[in-house]
């Protein structure tokens, strides 16, 4: 549980809030390049950290992220013309460049020279790792870009999707690091009921996760604080002398990774506050050693795992609260726990059901919620330290993000961070 004050501190990220100040110390993904594909293309609205912004690509191909509203009469620049290295407001013709400087003000006498004195908020952007990133913080604290493995593989080796979720970002992160939910929310009925046929199938498969989940239903949780955030170890009994470990990371300010099985694609999320009641979910699937396999593309196309199909204009998933995520009660009776198709929609349904900002004073946690507790305490600590003037370490050390999740068998006398050291290194 958290106190009301702690919950507020963590979940508010608008300008001027301590949580907002914290997120404004990191580069954040804000756009798919396809949203602003060519010079002088149409501008697009971008809402992030409670700010209404507008992105456009100027005539030189530079991506601008500026205040949505013209300072003259507060008209939306969304209706503006993207022309000759600037966006012109169609109301009275004021024009702004990528730096937010007003470069033309045709309705005022030229001799007043107003245009050079007028500026709107404009944030630096970078194209990196298949995404467009922005930094919304003070220029003197501009951080490093995070050297995430998925951001450094060739385009052919990764797929990144974007969707909007109707909850605060923290609820989404907590879903990402809560490994105990996957045996229930994402389970098939056979797995949940542990039918004979399921046991037979698992016993003879190479799927270690399924095998050891069957053997030990009460895993032990371990957390370790690191330079990038947290590594979370979930340990299950395996053979007499070994443990099966699943290791995942929480990377500041809001990245998570799904435990990686060697030979398969790796998956991770970045959860970016859109405002206090909604967040952007960026999901990456990648292979360091080659292009994604046909099977992996099938899973993406069929939405079976972490990606979901969305409305291309709004990024709202096609399975959403408004249509009850296309819940199929018959499927719930006979196929899986939820009757909802795909892990992404299952997560979204359950997290949105908690309300936009869950009241954490009313929770009833247990020791299986250790990772959630650790993540909240770390974020609270970081936010408070920034309020006292200490800049976040990870923001200025992009190398610390060079890390990967893992799952492996280790002898019982080996510490997981020692045993998994090589496996947790990113390669690209």
């Amino acid at each position, binding site marked *: *549980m958290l106190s009301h004050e702690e919950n507020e501190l963590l979940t508010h990220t608008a300008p001027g809030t301590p949580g907002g100040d914290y997120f404004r110390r990191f580069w954040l993904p804000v756009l798919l390049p396809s949203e602003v594909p060519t010079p002088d293309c149409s501008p697009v609205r971008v809402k992030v950290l409670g700010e209404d912004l507008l992105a456009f690509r100027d005539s030189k191909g530079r991506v601008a992220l500026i205040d949505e509203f013209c300072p003259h009469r507060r008209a939306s620049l969304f209706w503006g013309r993207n022309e000759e290295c600037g966006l012109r407001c169609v109301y009275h013709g004021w024009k702004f460049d990528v730096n937010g400087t007003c470069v033309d003000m045709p309705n005022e006498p030229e001799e007043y020279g107003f245009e050079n004195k007028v500026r709107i908020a404009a944030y630096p952007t970078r194209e990196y790792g298949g995404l467009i990133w922005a930094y919304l913080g003070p220029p003197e604290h501009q951080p490093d870009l995070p050297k995430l493995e998925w951001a450094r593989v060739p385009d052919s080796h990764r797929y990144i999707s974007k969707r909007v979720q109707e909850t605060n970002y923290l609820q989404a992160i907590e879903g990402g690091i809560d490994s105990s939910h996957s045996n229930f929310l994402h389970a098939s009925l056979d797995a949940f009921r542990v039918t004979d046929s399921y046991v037979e199938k698992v016993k003879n498969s190479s799927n270690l996760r399924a095998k050891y989940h069957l053997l030990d239903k009460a895993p*032990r949780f*371990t*957390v370790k604080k690191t330079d990038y955030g947290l590594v979370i170890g979930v340990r299950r009994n395996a053979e007499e002398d070994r443990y099966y470990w699943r290791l995942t990371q929480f990377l500041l300010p809001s990245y998570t990774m799904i435990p990686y099985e060697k030979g398969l694609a790796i998956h991770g999320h970045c959860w970016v506050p859109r405002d206090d009641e909604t967040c952007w979910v960026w999901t990456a699937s990648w292979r360091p050693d080659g292009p994604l396999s046909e099977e992996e593309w099938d899973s993406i196309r069929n939405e079976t795992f972490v990606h979901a199909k969305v409305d291309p204009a709004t990024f709202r998933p096609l399975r959403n609260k408004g249509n009850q995520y296309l819940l199929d009660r018959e499927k719930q009776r006979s196929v899986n726990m939820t009757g909802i198709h795909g892990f992404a929609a299952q997560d979204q349904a359950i997290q949105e059901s908690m309300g936009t900002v869950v009241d954490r004073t009313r929770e*009833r*946690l247990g*020791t299986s919620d250790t990772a959630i507790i650790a993540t909240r305490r*770390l974020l609270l600590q970081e936010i408070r330290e920034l309020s006292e003037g200490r800049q976040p370490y990870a923001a200025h050390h992009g190398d610390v993000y060079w890390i990967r999740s893992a799952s492996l068998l280790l002898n019982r006398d080996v510490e997981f961070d020692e045993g998994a050291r090589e496996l947790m290194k990113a390669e690209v």
Partner: protein
Amino acid sequence: MFPLSEVNPEHIVTVKDFSADTLRNVIAHLKVSTSFEHLVYREAELDALWTITGFFLANEPASTQRDAVNRLHTGTHKAHDLVADRRPEAAATVLEAFV
């Protein structure tokens, strides 16, 4: 019963009830906890105690233990907030009143 030299703060106490034994075990772990990770584990244990006492109060309205459990429930909350404030020793002192 729980010599502090033998208590490992890296270990999470299994909280299945709010018996005196469980409380003593949690208290002993509080007394040797120093790092961020230790405090996370202690908070998880106190959350579990608070959850169990809360469910008892909700489900056993006629119990003769009700007043005592209610005090423990409140004390657990206080201890939890002390751990959140990085004061595990003070949290242990709060819980010692219940054993």
